[in-house]
């Protein structure tokens, strides 16, 4: 064995993706509001979950998660994906500069716009970020299935996690590759996010191309067996 210090929980067959926690540990719930809800407001499932949480041990909250209003799981995920070689400080500063740039651009637009249009302009960078990524999420994906020696691109439904991941990945690759050498990342990212918020831009185009490919390969949809 690996010694008593590391023997927190080791299964008999070693899977590749294992965690230091025993599988009976549950995920922590950080938001303050969920603890202030009265008992009647919860549904049956939530009540069961609550009872289960009282008995089972809970994992420690990771350092990126916090109960403050400024921590957003989606933003943390995006920052982690932008990070290179573990430089979280740089990634986080780029993210905050992006949000600042979005806010500045929107405020400029807001002050220049006539009175009747002022209400339609969205200034909150978090809302713009969430909406832009939501607009970039594909509904259906393609997967390679080999049948009879030939590999076909088969349309396949995607899970929520996969959709979010693809949207973020496309956004980051787009900003890293298709920009002039001298433009900074926050500037380019804020530009792309604003375009995606209005359903324009290269990322949305990529999503539409994928949808069209899936529509074209509709005939092979029955190859999927899951």
């Amino acid at each position: 064995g690996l010694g008593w210090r590391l023997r927190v929980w080791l299964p008999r067959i070693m899977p590749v993706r294992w965690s230091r926690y025993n599988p009976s540990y549950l995920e922590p719930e950080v938001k303050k509001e969920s603890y202030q809800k009265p008992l009647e407001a919860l549904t049956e499932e939530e009540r069961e979950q609550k009872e289960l949480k009282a008995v089972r041990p809970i994992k420690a909250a990771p350092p990126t998660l916090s109960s403050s209003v400024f921590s957003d799981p989606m933003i943390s995920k995006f920052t982690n994906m932008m990070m290179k070689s573990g430089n979280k400080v740089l990634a986080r500063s780029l993210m905050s500069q992006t949000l600042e740039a979005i806010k500045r651009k929107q405020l400029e637009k807001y002050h220049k716009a006539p009175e009747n249009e002022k209400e339609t302009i969205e200034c909150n960078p978090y809302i713009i970020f969430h909406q832009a990524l939501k607009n970039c999420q594909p509904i259906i994906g393609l997967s390679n299935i080999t049948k009879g020696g030939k590999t076909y691109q088969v349309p396949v439904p995607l899970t929520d996690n996969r959709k979010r991941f693809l949207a973020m990945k496309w956004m980051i690759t787009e900003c890293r590759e298709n920009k002039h050498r001298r433009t900074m990342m926050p500037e380019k990212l804020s530009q792309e996010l604003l375009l995606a918020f209005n359903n324009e831009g290269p990322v949305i185009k990529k999503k539409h191309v994928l949808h069209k490919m899936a529509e074209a390969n509709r005939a092979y949809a029955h190859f999927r067996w899951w």
Partner: protein
Amino acid sequence: TLRLICTSTAVQRKNVGASGPEKYTETFIKKQIEEFNLGKRHLANMMGEDPETFTQEDIDRAIAYLFPSGLFDKQARPMMKHPTEVFPEQRKIQWGEDGRPFHFLFYTGKQSYYSLMHETYEKLLNVQKHQDQLVAQDLPLQKEKRNLAGSRWLTKIELEEMLLEKVSDDDYSRFIQLLQKLVALPCADIEEKYIQKFSKEVPMQLQKVVIEPLQYDERGVAFSTGEGQRKTARATAVVYDNGTGKITVNGIDILHYFPVLQDREQLLFPFQFLGRIGKHDMVCTVSGGGRSAQAGAIRLASAKALRSFVTEKEVEFMRQAGLLTVDPRVKERKKPGQEGPRRKFTWKKR
């Protein structure tokens, strides 16, 4: 030299295969128990204690004193335990003198497991029959839901001990599924006694931890201490009441010690969660680890210290938010034949 001539093949066979685990006879076990009791009395006399009230803990302490061992593995050190704990429980011979087995399911190979499954299914059918009777008489079905959160099913090892034979993973999961199906029926209260044989109580997590009371220093201000660790960092925090929200780490203000926003967020996390940001003062000492590990260690220490200031319900909320658990994640070791913990060497074709 003499050579055996008129022998049977059984005697001539030299390489006999292993015949399973050693079987202990009843007389052997009885003798072992007698020897153990005698030995216990001798040990008590040696240690100068009363032979009548010599418990197992006293035996362990005496053996550790008389035979000190530097071995790391606790199982390898000398121990003196009751023979029923040392020799595993074994089945008696399952067939009579004529060779005919006693149990009707002997030839399935897993007789106790299958008989258990049959029994449980019989109970299930019983409950369904009772249900049908109630429906036929137009009586209402009892809909009391059993509290599933406070109990757990037997683990596979416990089931193996109960049945005295090996149970595979598949068989175990099938048995648990059958039990869950039985419990899900509305009239399962009839078989409550049978179900209780296979379920164990799980105590509430909160009751395992003791919350220390507040201490008071010379000025009359209440304070409490907490210790925390994360990776290689060790931290101690002293949280004072009636404060202004000042936090000092190793004599330095947090704004200078932790220039990164994320670390400061982590330090303030327990206070923000309880809504007590400007009310407490904190003085911490931390050593070891890196920047993020030190922040995590201080977070755990401050959360533990805050337990004394707060009601039990809020302590439970803190636990469910993951503030009071020690993070077990440490750096994974490098393995031989690989460059790092997971990275393999570059594959070269030739």
